[in-house]
């Protein structure tokens, strides 16, 4: 069944490629419909846990390569939710690609990506996982590159870090396999065996975990890999950014949930002499700190960026940070919170990126200070963005707060005061950049060149409206998502949290989301009553404004000049400047690339020596080899 779905995906990709350059609308609608079909099929697969399909590829020597697909609770959950979000995004890109220039073969790659997306979640052995992982990496590279003008550089940030991670994972996989006590490629059994091995050989297990963690962190842009989303998400095509930010960056988290977290849980169960902090292994604690650092760093970088897509990308980084921190708490609430936040983030961040895509679709502008006042022109887009940032900031009654609440529950009940503080700092900082984006794009003065901007076409509004609905829906009744999460958490060997549709029960307190939502509505009506009491309001033009008594026309005031958006948080930047200059990871990476280039250039000069020179290398090399050989 799973293999059939994947096969159909391949076929669909080929069909889309074969449709040719002219039938753009057909192709994109076809692929969106196809994805809908896949979603439907996936829904039907719910409950068939433990089903495994094996396809042998070849065996040579002592290794047998085969593709194994199976349905795990976690995998199904991810597959289903990502597919749903994917459908939303694809509906958006139908219009986008019909109205803008479409790169040849992009749709083909999109479908392949969707297929590898499923394959990642359905693979039950490491080889399959790695294959799906690789395909996902390179297809996304090619989807990112035709984006904006610096897209190649941006895609390289993503690609090199990702490939670095993938190779780390490759070594990890084979290390697992080469360890005599494990010698399996099956994911589930490797977890159990590794946990046992941790008693006798903690060093090996530690290194293997480190290799996998490198890979997952690189993919999910956890510190110190955080620079890539800002580059890649920002430069990617506008309809692909939601996918990158909503789904792609979650693969690393999926990997963590698939492998690292269950492994730690197992180790805690079977290994009595592991070093613990606050009831969790030290490793896990350290990794949780990585998450916290990511959260704060992402927030700071989002605050100081002026590019709207970069801002949203850094926001993604910081949200990933919350999820990572929460997962590595290893408690039931922690894992649930992390997982739930992943879903919520996928929903609201896709909504945010979709609305940004819509803004860009109409204005072709990306730097925030050049925009402004679009709220009245594009109300649906504005509303999507507004609700998106409310959710992102974790403000009730939208979905973001439900997961943040669980994360705080986990952190507080596990007694992690400093982690909590970091997360809270990041979370509060989120208001800064989110509001900044809201203001600079949608509020304030409308530049005159955008006077004729219209709302995006209805087909583009559909996914945004869907986004709004799902944010509201999950916020009102988080139980609909938390129940399947509970299944996945239970499969990891934890007791799932007690949840009902609108009730979440934590250790420190419980919360009824319906109550929260209705409180907000009630309060709004209360305020509205006051509003009605007051005398009727009077509408004036935006530029008819307080100017300290000056006549605007006298000193040539334009909406562009009267829109405060550039260097919005200069004070914050000033506060952090001393630290920022010292700790710029990006510069470090740049230097690395530069050095690699000059290293290569130096080496290649060796091949331009004279004939005597190359003979010299020959002979000297031989002498050195002989001498070294005798030493070894």
């Amino acid at each position, binding site marked *: 069944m799973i293999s059939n779905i994947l096969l159909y995906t391949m076929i669909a990709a080929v069909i889309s490629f074969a449709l040719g350059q002219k039938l753009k609308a057909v192709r994109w609608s076809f692929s969106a419909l196809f994805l809908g079909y896949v979603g439907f099929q996936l829904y039907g697969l719910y409950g068939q846990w433990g089903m495994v399909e094996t396809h042998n590829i070849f065996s040579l020597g002592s290794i047998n390569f085969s593709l194994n697909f199976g349905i795990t609770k976690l995998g199904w959950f991810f597959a289903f939710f990502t597919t749903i979000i994917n459908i939303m995004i694809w509906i958006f890109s139908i219009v986008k690609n019909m109205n803008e220039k479409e790169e040849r073969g992009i749709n083909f790659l999109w479908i392949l990506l969707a297929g590898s997306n499923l394959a990642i979640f359905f693979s039950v052995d490491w080889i399959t996982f790695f294959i799906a992982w690789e395909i996902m990496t390179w297809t996304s590279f090619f989807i990112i590159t035709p984006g904006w003008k610096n897209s190649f550089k941006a895609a390289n940030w993503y690609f090199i870090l990702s490939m670095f991670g993938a190779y780390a994972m490759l070594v990890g996989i084979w290390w697992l396999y080469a360890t005599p006590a494990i010698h399996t490629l099956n994911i589930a059994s490797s977890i159990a065996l590794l946990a046992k091995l941790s008693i006798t050989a903690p060093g090996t297990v530690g290194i293997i975990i480190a290799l996998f963690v490198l890979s997952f962190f690189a993919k999910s842009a956890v510190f110190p890999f955080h620079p890539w989303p800002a580059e890649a998400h920002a430069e990617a095509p506008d309809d692909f950014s939601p996918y990158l930010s909503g789904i792609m960056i979650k693969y690393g988290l999926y990997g963590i949930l698939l492998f690292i977290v269950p492994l730690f849980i197992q180790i805690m169960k079977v290994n009595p002499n592991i070093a613990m902090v606050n009831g969790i292994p030290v490793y896990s604690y350290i990794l949780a700190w990585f998450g916290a650092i990511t959260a704060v760093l992402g927030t700071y970088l989002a605050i100081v960026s002026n590019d709207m897509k970069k801002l949203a990308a850094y926001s993604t980084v910081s949200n990933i940070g919350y999820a990572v921190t929460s997962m590595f708490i290893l408690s039931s609430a922690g894992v649930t919170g992390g997982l739930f936040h992943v879903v919520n983030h996928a929903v609201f961040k896709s909504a945010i990126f979709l609305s940004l895509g819509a803004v860009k679709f109409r204005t072709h502008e990306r730097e925030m200070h050049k925009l402004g006042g679009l709220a009245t022109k594009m109300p649906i887009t504005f509303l999507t963005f507004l609700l998106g940032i409310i959710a992102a900031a974790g403000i009730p009654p939208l979905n973001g707060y439900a997961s943040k609440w669980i994360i705080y529950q986990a952190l507080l009940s596990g007694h992690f005061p400093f982690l909590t503080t970091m997360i809270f700092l990041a979370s509060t900082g989120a208001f800064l950049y989110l509001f900044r984006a809201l203001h600079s794009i949608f509020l304030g003065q409308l530049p005159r060149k955008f006077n004729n901007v219209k709302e995006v076409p209805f087909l583009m509004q559909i996914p945004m409206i869907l986004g709004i609905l799902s944010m509201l829906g999950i916020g009102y009744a988080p139980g609909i998502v938390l129940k399947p999460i509970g299944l996945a958490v239970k499969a990891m060997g934890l007791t799932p949290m007690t949840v009902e549709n609108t009730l979440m029960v934590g250790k420190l307190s419980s919360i009824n989301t319906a109550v929260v939502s209705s409180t907000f509505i009630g309060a709004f009506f209360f305020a509205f009553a006051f509003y009605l009491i007051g005398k009727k309001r009077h509408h004036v033009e935006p530029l008819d*404004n*307080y100017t300290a008594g000056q006549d605007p026309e006298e000193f040539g005031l334009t909406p562009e000049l009267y829109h405060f958006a550039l260097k919005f948080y200069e004070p914050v930047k000033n506060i952090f400047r001393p630290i920022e200059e010292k700790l710029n990871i990006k510069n470090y990476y740049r230097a690395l690339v530069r050095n690699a280039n000059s290293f290569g250039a130096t080496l290649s000069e060796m091949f331009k020596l004279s004939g005597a020179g190359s003979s010299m290398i020959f002979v000297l090399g031989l002498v050195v080899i002989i001498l070294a050989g005798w030493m070894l």
Partner: protein
Amino acid sequence: MIVLKFIGYGFTAIIIGLLFMGIGRKYTARIQRRYGPPFWQAFIDVTKLFSKQSLSHNWIMDFGILMGFAGIVGTILFMPIGPWHFFSLMNGNIVIIMYFMTIGSLGMAMGVSASGNPNSTIGISRALTLMVGYEIPFVIAVIGLIFVSKSSLLGTMVSLQSGGIMNWNIIKYPFGFIAVEMALQAMLGEKPFDVITAPSEIASGPMVELSGKMMGLAFLQHAAQIFLETGIVVNLFLGGANNIWEFFLKQFVLFILSLTVNAISPRFKFEDAVKWLWTWPTVFALIQLLIIILT
């Protein structure tokens, strides 16, 4: 019934808040050797504002202001006011309160920045940055309290402090209280942290473009905010109250304390305000937290 209760809560908060504001103006005036307005001046102002015509640039402005006010009023419902609980105690969760409160800030921010005046936007950017400043010490202090009371419910915290003044958290955890009191000064936007409005710099900041009932709603929001923020601190450190009058009294004490500081302080430069909040109160809060963890 529940609607009436709701309205009752809302009006209590507003009235007490406005009363505090009025008394506060009088008190400040007396400290500064002025006569000052009567203590019911705030009520007069609000009534006047609601009866005047207001200017609005677009619907978002109205919506934002409404949301701001609604956010604060909604948050008050989660807070136990002495013996009064709007919901069952289960819902009075400090995390929810802190996040619900931000609806107010966000709404206000959205409303005034929709007006398109750079002064108000600068004010908002300052307000949000300052929020990061004061929430850190506040949160660290609160985390300590959550650890000792093993619950994040305000109600539970209050009940743990019952039985005499020696059980109050202000006595048990004085450093935490100092941190929170410093943060409260910034929360209320009083000097030396009145960088948000800063009339002489940015023409009252957020309020610059508000008029009529918009201004009235903003006024009410401020009143409710005073009530809410002092109320939280009362619940956290002053042992709550057995009856509402005691509660109001404690709030009033806190408010007067902050007004006193306000009346005699100059204003911080903006960056310095944030830095100051991240040094002194944060250090106090951390000391408190370490004491709690290590004992």
